[in-house]
């Protein structure tokens, strides 16, 4: 027994030593910033304490027995081996405890699933490997991508404070309002999770799941995709900024104006032609941001999974097919539709780039107007 207790203690001290070092990481579930997240936290603690109490009782009896009822102490083993009364007791007692657990759990669950009477509704669409946010009551929508530089991931640069938990354009929501999330996906299943809100909902392609939150205080809240969604599952974080109503109104008005202006600009561009250099420069930037994850920066793809573009029949010959697949994607494959993700000029540029980079050298120049034409019918 001395051996046992010695080892237990050394294990404990070892663990404690480590936990003090990493003061940054909380050792428990977050209490979060919403009423619901608090409820969830207290539910978690309640059940944890009940489990601990049962554990102490059961293991207490067991270790008492291990210490005292050992052959080396010369005890004679008893021979009793059944008792219906005891069996009934330790069947019935847990049932009572479970009912006591189930009541608050049921209440919280029903509150969590009531998405009615929301003030703001946001459509959240996951895709490999980014989130798209669309405000249903405003003309505002945008993609939100990982902002951590590749070099930090590859250990070539020092990692920042919010390593892997930072995005280029966070979701912005007003405080004090019931915000409803409509969660869906364009490709595989993702899961939108912000621990501080206790919201985790799967984004199922073709279906919309609903969740809601009401954040009381302004702040920045971070989360991650919580369902394996392929290669870069670990690299599609979520950042939500909660702002006061006034700040939010100002932000969304400005955002709507910017997006409207961009659309108008896009229309203007239709009548202008970009030079090859401009197209190639914008095309390369777009390609690296949207295409290279699958087709690879070298255009070689990954054999057996993602086709190569370098030397491919489509990139060398079939221009209408090329425009069509970028705009509309290819059903039944991982190729997504980029029509709503990219601007017309970006699509034109990326197709130009794919047809001229990596020795493809077709000399084809594709302009925004060509894309607009292809999009018409």
């Amino acid at each position, binding site marked *: 027994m001395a051996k046992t207790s010695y080892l237990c203690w050394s294990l404990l001290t070892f663990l404690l030593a480590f936990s003090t070092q990493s003061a940054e990481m909380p*050792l428990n579930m977050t209490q979060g910033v919403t009423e619901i997240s608090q409820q969830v936290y207290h539910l978690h603690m309640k059940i944890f304490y009940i489990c601990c109490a049962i554990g102490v009782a059961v293991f207490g009896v067991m270790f008492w027995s291990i210490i005292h009822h050992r052959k080396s102490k010369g005890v004679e083993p008893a021979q009793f081996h059944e008792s219906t009364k005891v069996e009934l007791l330790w069947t019935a007692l847990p049932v009572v405890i479970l009912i006591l657990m189930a009541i608050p759990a049921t209440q919280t669950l029903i509150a969590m699933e009531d998405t009615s009477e929301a003030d703001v509704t946001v459509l959240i669409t996951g895709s490999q490997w980014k989130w798209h946010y669309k405000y249903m009551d405003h003309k505002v929508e945008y993609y939100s991508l990982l902002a951590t530089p590749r070099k930090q991931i590859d250990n070539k640069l020092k990692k920042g404070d919010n390593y892997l938990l930072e995005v280029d354009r966070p979701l912005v929501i007003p405080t004090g309002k019931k915000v409803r999330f409509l969660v869906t996906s364009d490709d595989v299943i993702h899961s939108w999770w912000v621990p501080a809100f206790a919201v985790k909902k799967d984004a199922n392609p073709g279906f919309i799941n609903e969740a809601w939150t009401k954040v009381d205080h302004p702040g920045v809240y971070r989360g991650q995709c919580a369902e394996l969604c392929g290669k870069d599952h670990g690299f599609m974080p979520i950042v939500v900024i909660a702002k006061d109503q006034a700040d939010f109104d100002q932000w969304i008005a400005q955002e709507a104006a910017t997006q409207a202006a961009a659309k108008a600009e896009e229309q203007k561009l239709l009548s202008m032609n970009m030079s090859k250099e401009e197209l190639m420069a914008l095309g390369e930037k777009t390609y690296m941001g949207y295409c290279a994850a699958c087709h690879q920066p070298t255009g070689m793809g990954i054999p057996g999974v993602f086709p190569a573009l370098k030397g491919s029949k489509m990139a060398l010959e079939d221009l209408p097919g090329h425009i069509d697949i970028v705009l509309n994607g290819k059903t039944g494959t991982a190729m997504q539709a980029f029509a709503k993700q990219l601007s017309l000029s970006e699509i034109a540029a990326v197709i130009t780039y794919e047809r001229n980079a990596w020795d493809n050298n077709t000399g084809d120049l594709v302009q925004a107007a060509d894309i607009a034409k292809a999009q018409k019918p």
Partner: protein
Amino acid sequence: MSTVTTDPHAHAEHEHHHGPAKGLKRWLYTTNHKDIGTLYLLFALTMFFIGGAMAMVIRAELFQPGLQIVQPDFFNQMTTVHGLIMVFGAVMPAFTGLANWLVPMMIGAPDMALPRMNNWSFWILPFAFSILLLSLFMEGGGPGFGWTFYAPLSTTYSSDSTALFVFSVHIMGISSIMGAINVIVTIMNLRAPGMTYMKMPLFVWTWFITAYLLIAVMPVLAGAVTMVLTDKYFGTSFFDAAGGGDPVLFQHIFWFFGHPEVYIMILPAFGIVSSIVPTFARKPLFGYASMVYATSSIALLSFLVWAHHMFTTGMPVFAELFFMYCTMLIAVPTGVKVFNWVATMWRGAMTFEVPMMFALAFIVLFTIGGFSGLMLAITPADFQYHDTYFVVAHFHYVLVTGAIFSIMAAAYYWLPKWTGHMYDETLGQWHFWCSLISVNVLFFPMHFVGLAGMPRRIPDYALQFADFNALISIGGFAFGLSQLLFVWLVVKCIKGGEKATAQVWEGAEGLEWTIPSPAPYHSFTTPPEIK
């Protein structure tokens, strides 16, 4: 005795003197339950190390934040194949191996009921796993969609090797179903006279129930992979909303298999612990009948709880409540089992040889896994735990310190019966203590990491998780290395050692302890009479 023309007894006499054949043929052609049991156990051990090597790759990559050793794509393949190998290649075959060795000896049967089919069940496995492992070297890599292969990641978005994965799961399933049929028929039909159902050792009982679970759910898995195959290659849309299907349908079918599957991996463990604890407490098992009823209720309930793996998929509230309540109910029969084991120890006269140590560790650590399981059953809290390291901690507590520890306990307990030699007790104790400490350094901190918000199945993580992940990795490497002690011990024990008596353990009871150690090649060719 109706139309038999030749005298069967003459034949029997002739057969009695058959020992094992020589060389490789013995193992390829064998119909002997002990040979086949050995093959299963050695295969499981090999797979345990292959799957373990993959775990080491995972832990090495996660040792520090950033990508160091493998790319995310390959990381996903490692987690996927690690899971598949450990579930279908290590734990299940190990239990089947134990069933092969022990069930006929425990019920006084001459062999398994269908000996040739028994051999077929085994030999499919090495081939099935070769296919799975070979797929890793295909263009585009092996399966990378998690062992749960959720659609559409496993259909539209998977690599070309998916077909190989599907067909290897198919033949694994055929193997499991035939193995299960064999166990059921053996137990129903080959019990020695007087061995009534309620006299069967609990290991036999738990395996009996496990086998029913197997034949009920392995075909459902076959159906699920078939739908994945046709969705990916033949244009069906079972899991595609555009065609009227639903990706969540896949999860329903998968977990209808998957939840009974996790009990398939733990019920035999209950049987093992129920055999070992009374032996070393020198006191009969407390509440034999209630153990049988509890096991049966767990098995029945396992068909009603599958969607607790899917609380975040957007089911309606009433469904979430139903699955939450049913899942919580499972705690009751599971609790009964733990209470019974503790009551068995109470006022016994205990000694602490290695099998007992592993069994005791099982009881404590499996119960910890049970507690976290109860926490996971609470739907609102599950929204926070789901798909984090808390879940990883939970199922590794029930599968490693649960299933694997029970298999270790069983190996130590019956090794003397199998080899005729006592194992090296000191080495065994070393193995136990090293495993116990490292496994807790490995899995206990995962609870904290998960609660702090680290998702599972990611190759890289935020900086706050760094220290704990380093600690976890150290635990992982130590646990991996500790298992080499076990291999050393087993080799030593096969080669020689103190001669084991027939009874081996002072407190052991049951038919297998009435025959000599090592058990003769054929035992109970004429059934014993049970009073």
